[in-house]
């Protein structure tokens, strides 16, 4: 090897090393990976997470997984290779998303889950989650009181692969199933989607025109169910219950058209996850694995304070 070739090799090596290292002045980059931006609730979560990360002095970018684990996986590969330093993550699947978190973990990138839990205690650095079970137990109590302890009802579930779906359903059934006067006519998934819930309820109503109440696993589906009931001329006969605290549902509760919902706090979850990422960058490593965030029951008597 000539001296010229040796020098060239040294220059190339030094250049490549500099490319792979972040300069000390460069801001750490925070990726906000969201299950879907096709739902206003998740848009609030995503924007709040990015805004909080930026306010803490970091560069932030939102990635939409479109409720598709394959897109989520691509997002993770892209953001890891692009040198992101932390991920504020809203998973698409409680089991399926674990491998993506592990990829980030292997690359030394901490992951802070928001709102949706994964079924692992040692994948994410921390998980900030709504207390869905308690919130839906309170909705269940309101449901029983509102229907005087008996009635025929339908449950429209969220995404079957999401733990929140089962936490909400579990909290609700932990109450309602103790009252033998209730009969569940059907339990079907509406995928947390307004239009799907509307179609699901329209189909169910054909076979069960005598239903008296609908419990929906989120407010988008509650609005879809309400729309289906309105079209069928049953909106004033069938009681609708949701979960999320979306502004359109709060308005309907105040008007007496929807009975109750559970108010979640996406901004608090986003703020906490961004704060944890900031603390991680500053050296903290000991985070609680799961941080529940309180859910508040909203009904007609207190809807005004949430508008």
């Amino acid at each position: 090897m000539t001296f010229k070739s040796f020098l060239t090799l040294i220059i190339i090596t030094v250049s490549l090393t500099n490319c792979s290292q972040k300069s000390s002045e460069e801001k750490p980059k925070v990726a906000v990976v969201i299950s879907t931006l096709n739902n206003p609730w998740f848009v609030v979560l995503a924007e709040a997470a990015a805004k909080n990360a930026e306010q803490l002095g970091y560069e932030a970018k939102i990635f939409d997984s479109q409720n598709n684990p394959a897109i989520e996986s691509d997002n993770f590969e892209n953001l890891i290779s692009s040198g992101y330093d932390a991920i504020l993550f809203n998973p698409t699947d409680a089991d399926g998303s674990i491998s993506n978190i592990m990829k980030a973990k292997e690359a030394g990138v901490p992951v802070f889950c928001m709102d949706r839990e994964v079924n692992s205690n040692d994948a994410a650095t921390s998980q900030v989650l709504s207390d869905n079970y308690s919130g839906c137990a309170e909705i269940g109590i309101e449901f029983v009181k509102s229907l005087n302890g008996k009635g025929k009802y339908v449950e429209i579930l969220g995404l079957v692969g999401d733990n929140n779906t089962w936490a909400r359903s579990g909290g609700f059934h932990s109450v309602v199933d103790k009252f033998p006067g209730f009969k569940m006519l059907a339990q079907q998934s509406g995928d947390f989607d307004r239009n799907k819930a509307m179609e699901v309820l329209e189909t169910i109503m054909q076979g069960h025109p005598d239903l008296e109440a609908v419990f929906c696993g989120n407010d988008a589906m509650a609005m879809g169910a309400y729309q289906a009931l309105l079209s069928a001329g049953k909106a004033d006969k069938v009681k609708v219950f949701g979960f999320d605290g979306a502004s359109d549902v709060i308005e309907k509760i105040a008007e007496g058209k929807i009975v109750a919902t559970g108010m979640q706090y996406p901004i608090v979850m986003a703020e906490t996850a961004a704060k944890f990422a900031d603390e991680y960058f500053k050296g903290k490593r000991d985070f609680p694995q799961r941080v529940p965030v309180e859910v508040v029951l909203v009904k007609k008597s207190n809807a005004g304070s949430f508008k």
Partner: protein
Amino acid sequence: MKKVIGLVIVCFLVYNSVYFKKLSEQSASESSKFNFVAYADSIYNQGILKQAKPIALADLQKELGKNTENAFSQFGNRLGIGQTAYFMVSVDGTVLNKTVDGFEVKTTDGNIYPIDIKFIFGNAIRDASKLVKLTDFKTNADFNKVSEELNNVIREKAIPAQLSTLTVGDKVEVVGAIKQSKKDALPILILPANITKL
């Protein structure tokens, strides 16, 4: 005979192809094998009945009035983030009357408190007891199952047995969970964990 056996087989196959099973039951059947019933039973009998140190409701109200933050951190339990906490309290008084949801207790200082035996649900008693840690369970679903079984022990077994001998005018001590908020004044509603006839 062959026809009968054939009919039974056909009926069995038809039933198994169309019978109704809740999606939630399907999901639950895949969960862990931990014995939640035995665990909840020990939390109640060995924990709540023997170790729980409830604060007298009147004392808690004084503490809340003096220094809310201190009362919440010393006597309450809030897992994670929120404005409310659960407290394990005790009330001595006389059974004033029986209601649709339970009964009312009148204390010696004249206060009347509702005891709700119909809606003992959610995480109130588990959290007020301070005996179960979130980190002891791998998922929130498992952690919530503890509440479900603990509520079952109290609502289905302990309280009905204790109530069976109770009549209006009896003197009682009620130990139970209440929820209070730092932000809004919440009405006192006691979810009983134990009722003792004095």
